């Protein structure tokens, strides 16, 4: 939800920077997603007094300007500037978005600031040239003084906080955080002798669905555009101005959080407004020009003949305000949250109004909202407000929560005094009597003492809560998890790489591996219509992984994951090998697993893919094998007795993004002392250049023939550029550098 800084100031005085507001709100529970600040005060109005050519660049100019007192020399590239023009000038230190103006030298000449285009100032998309001002703009003054200079905050309001969906609501939050009172101007309405109740009546048939319905009658309105200030506020928050009456109802909603609706009184048949469930067969053409059939669950506002609005969701076309509207009925009501949610879901309409009703409205704020709107309509649309509010309602419900001072401290881990707790709650609008808190009328999310604990904690400040260690105790018995991880280590030791694939299978995947889809679980709302099954095998995923990596040979991959069918979810291991020595790798893997776990040969049967299957999965390598086995009883199948420990790989990782461009490979072999760790050497190679994308050890042996205590190690070194294909020359340069560093650091010798 968007909030304007200037609008908050209608309710509460504060002298905070945008950043401070961001902090205060975010760390008290109202997350500020982002904000767009008004223009920096360092952008001032200046006049050009001299323009010269730049000595070293034809397209640049040396411009001298004055702010009325001081002169500045700047370098500028715009074509549209002339002597005597009035222009916006960004002084050193100005922040324009993320960009800060600093003293720089442009082609050998220093520039102490910048002349700005409208785009640079964030005023428009115009980047054609420097913004030219007229002589009304006074030299030396901040440009911001002449512009509408407001900050728009974009807030994430959690679903429990319907009360924060307005400027008043956010002002209340600031008030609690800053311990500063907010004020709501009292409304005085001038109405004549004629009463609203002489024009209309209101009745609610079911007060659980509508606990409160207020209406005012306003005569002789002049429908027309709203004044600029009102349109501006709506526009800045993303609402389109329509006409004065509709704009005022929208304005009040953003202002106070109370959705309002205005009906054209002369389009209403009879003189009674009924709030009731829709009757069988009833339909309504809503304001979005859709004809909607209404079920009996839908609450409607009706005149004596027909529905004129879907309560709390959208008005009807049959009672819409138009240019010719003279008299209006203004509605302010509270509707049941659950029913509004259901209606909105059933009809597929979410409006600003339904969104707020679903999240709860301040039941004590209805009268103020309708009065403020009526006053604005009388002032801005010259309407005559008839005396009195026509209403039907049930008694407001009070929520009282006993304050468990000690339990609250125990739960937060603090030692806050009862006085401070009370003070925090009072600033939040609670009324406190005898250790009991009466929940403010605008908060419908609070029922239990734990809710109060959250209120106290967030205003007290999470950053003031002391960290407290929890006691160490003996680790529990090792669960299945540990055995799975052990199995992974066995495979990784054999050269296998662990992959994670998606749990979804397409129709095509199931055909390719000949699955009977009737046994598969099916997603009702898949991401793509054809990818709707849940996998009952990990093999299709592994085969796709093989197909995706044609440059690797051999490919040794495995996955441990859950597979599904209509009856159960099973944890499963699948292994696949492809390419060079694929058969011996998978045989070795099976052997190692069987050495450690009591699987039968059948359970770990090796399947060779047919040529046809390989083609279907677009695998280019001639041979591939797979094994798949359930792991549900893995713990019982373990042959080893010792306590199982988790192995944490401690190798250093040098992450390099994957380039779209091909990499260059070189092989290097060195002879060096056996004591030198391979990992250290690999680290060294990565650090040589960011273009080194992969270093792979592929051969290592020790022999006295190489010299005493020497070993030979050989690496594949892959190099790449992110934005182009690396040339041989570039690769050779890096390789040379690596050789030099390795030879010098480790007294190593390069082998031919």
């Amino acid at each position, binding site marked *: 939800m968007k909030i304007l800084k200037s609008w908050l100031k209608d309710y509460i005085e504060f002298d905070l920077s945008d950043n401070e507001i961001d902090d205060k709100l*975010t*760390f*008290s*529970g109202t997350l500020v997603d982002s904000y767009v600040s008004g223009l920096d005060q360092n952008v001032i109005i200046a006049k050009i007094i001299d323009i010269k050519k730049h000595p070293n660049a034809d397209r640049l100019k040396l411009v001298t300007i004055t702010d009325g007192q001081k002169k500045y020399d700047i370098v500028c590239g715009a074509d549209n500037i002339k002597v005597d023009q009035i222009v916006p000038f960004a002084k050193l230190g100005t922040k324009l978005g993320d960009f800060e103006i600093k003293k720089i030298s442009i082609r050998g000449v220093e520039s102490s600031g910048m002349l700005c285009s409208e785009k640079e100032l964030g005023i428009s998309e115009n980047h054609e040239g420097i913004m030219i001002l007229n002589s009304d703009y006074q030299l030396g003054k901040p440009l911001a003084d002449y512009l509408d200079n407001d900050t728009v905050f974009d807030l994430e309001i959690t*679903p*429990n906080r319907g009360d924060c969906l307005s400027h008043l609501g956010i002002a209340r939050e600031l008030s609690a955080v800053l311990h500063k009172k907010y004020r709501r101007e009292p409304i005085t309405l001038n109405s004549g002798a004629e009463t609203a109740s002489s024009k209309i009546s209101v009745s609610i048939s079911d007060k659980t669905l509508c606990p409160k319905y207020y209406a005012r009658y306003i005569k002789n309105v002049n429908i027309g555009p709203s004044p600029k200030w009102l349109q501006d506020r709506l526009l800045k928050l993303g609402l389109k101005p329509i006409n004065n009456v509709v704009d005022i109802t929208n304005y009040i909603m953003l202002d106070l959080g109370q959705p309002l609706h205005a009906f054209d009184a002369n389009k209403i048949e009879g003189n009674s407004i009924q709030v009731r469930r829709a009757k069988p067969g009833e339909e309504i053409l809503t304001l979005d020009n859709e004809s909607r059939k209404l079920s009996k669950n839908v609450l409607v506002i009706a005149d004596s003949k027909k529905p004129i609005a879907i309560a709390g969701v959208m008005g009807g076309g049959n009672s819409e305000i138009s240019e010719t509207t003279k008299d209006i009925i203004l509605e302010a009501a509270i509707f049941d949250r659950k029913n509004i*949610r259901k209606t909105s879901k059933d009809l597929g309409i979410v409006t600003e109004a339904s969104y707020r009703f679903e*999240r709860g409205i301040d039941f004590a704020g209805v009268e103020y909202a309708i009065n403020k709107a009526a006053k604005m309509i009388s002032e801005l649309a010259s309407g005559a407000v008839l005396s009195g509010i026509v209403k039907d309602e049930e008694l407001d419900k009070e929520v009282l929560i006993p304050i468990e001072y000690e339990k609250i401290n*125990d*739960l*937060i*881990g*603090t030692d806050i005094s009862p006085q401070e707790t009370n003070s925090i709650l009072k600033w939040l609008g609670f009324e406190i009597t005898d250790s009991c808190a009466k929940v403010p009328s605008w908060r419908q999310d609070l029922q*239990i003492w*734990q809710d109060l*604990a*959250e209120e106290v904690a967030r205003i007290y400040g*999470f*950053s003031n*809560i002391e*960290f*407290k*260690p*929890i006691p160490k*105790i*003996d*680790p*529990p018995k090792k*669960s*299945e*998890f540990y055995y799975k991880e052990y199995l992974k280590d066995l495979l990784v030791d054999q*050269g296998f*790489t662990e*992959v*994670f*694939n*998606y*749990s979804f299978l397409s129709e095509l995947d199931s055909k390719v591996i000949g699955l009977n889809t009737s046994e598969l*679980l*099916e*997603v009702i*709302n898949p*991401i793509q219509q054809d990818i709707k099954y*849940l996998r009952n095998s990990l093999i299709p995923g592994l085969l796709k992984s093989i197909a*995706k*990596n044609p440059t*690797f040979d051999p490919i040794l991959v495995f996955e441990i994951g*859950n597979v599904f069918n209509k009856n159960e*979810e099973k944890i499963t291991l699948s292994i696949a090998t492809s390419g060079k020595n694929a058969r011996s*790798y998978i045989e070795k893997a099976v052997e190692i697993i069987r050495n450690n776990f009591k699987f039968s040969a059948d359970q770990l049967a090796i399947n060779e893919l047919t040529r046809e299957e390989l083609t279907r999965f677009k695998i280019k390598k001639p041979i591939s094998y797979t094994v798949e086995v359930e792991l549900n009883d893995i713990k019982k199948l373990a042959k080893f007795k010792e306590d199982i420990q988790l192995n*944490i790989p401690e190798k250093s*990782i*040098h992450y*390099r*993004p*994957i380039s779209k461009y091909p990499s260059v490979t070189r092989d290097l072999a060195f002879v060096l002392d056996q004591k030198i760790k391979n990992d250290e050497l690999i680290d060294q190679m990565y650090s040589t250049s960011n273009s080194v994308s*992969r270093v792979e*050890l*592929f*051969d290592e042996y020790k022999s006295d023939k190489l010299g005493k205590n020497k070993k030979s190690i050989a690496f594949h070194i892959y190099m790449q550029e992110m934005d182009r294909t690396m040339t041989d020359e570039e690769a050779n340069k890096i390789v040379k550098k690596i050789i030099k560093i390795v030879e010098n650091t480790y007294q190593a010798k390069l082998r031919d």
Partner: protein
Amino acid sequence: MVKGNLHPVTQLIRKAVKFFESYGFDVFEGPEVDSEWYNFDALNIAADHPSRDVQDTFWLKDGKLLRTQTSNSQVRYGETHKPPIRAIVPGICYRNEATDSGHEVMFMQLEGLYIDKKVNMGQLFWILDEFYKSFYGPETKIRFRPHHFPFTEPSLEFELKFQGKWFELGGAGMVHPKVIENMGIDPDKYCGFAFGPGIERPIMIKYGISDIRLFRSGDLRFLKQF
């Protein structure tokens, strides 16, 4: 000689398990296909409340769903164990959302659950702080800000400062008494904390990985770097 590699997610999960086992946390892995009860209702997320809308759910034809959070295991674990309870649940979660470099339909969470007498928020802050320090180093800074989850009260989100920038890591809070009650445990006697940060994100932050979809890409150029 081909070198094998553990998936980067596995590596982080192992570090997490190693850290939490020293404080007595059991490892539990709940089902990925679960009922509406365990995934939503038992966690105080009523169908008629807008908090349901926060997570886009994959529904199955048989009425079940793909869990949207590892929190589905809170009540499952709680109803089969007596307090004191200390458990972590690493696992896959599913969200029916449009994917981009920051969003995936499948991602991993690390659920943590701690239920005992007189557990407090200061302890929750402490253990999260310690854990991320063990992963990123002792200079690591974690901060907390209030948030809302129906299954915790108070609720919070936490952020990590890495190379001068703050990154959101996930949510946590004090387990809601209704959730404790749904475990069959007396909420007047016991309370606790729970947390459920993502697993991919800390890895992305640490190594500068810009696209979450790489984790399930099967691309060996990515996986063989870990």
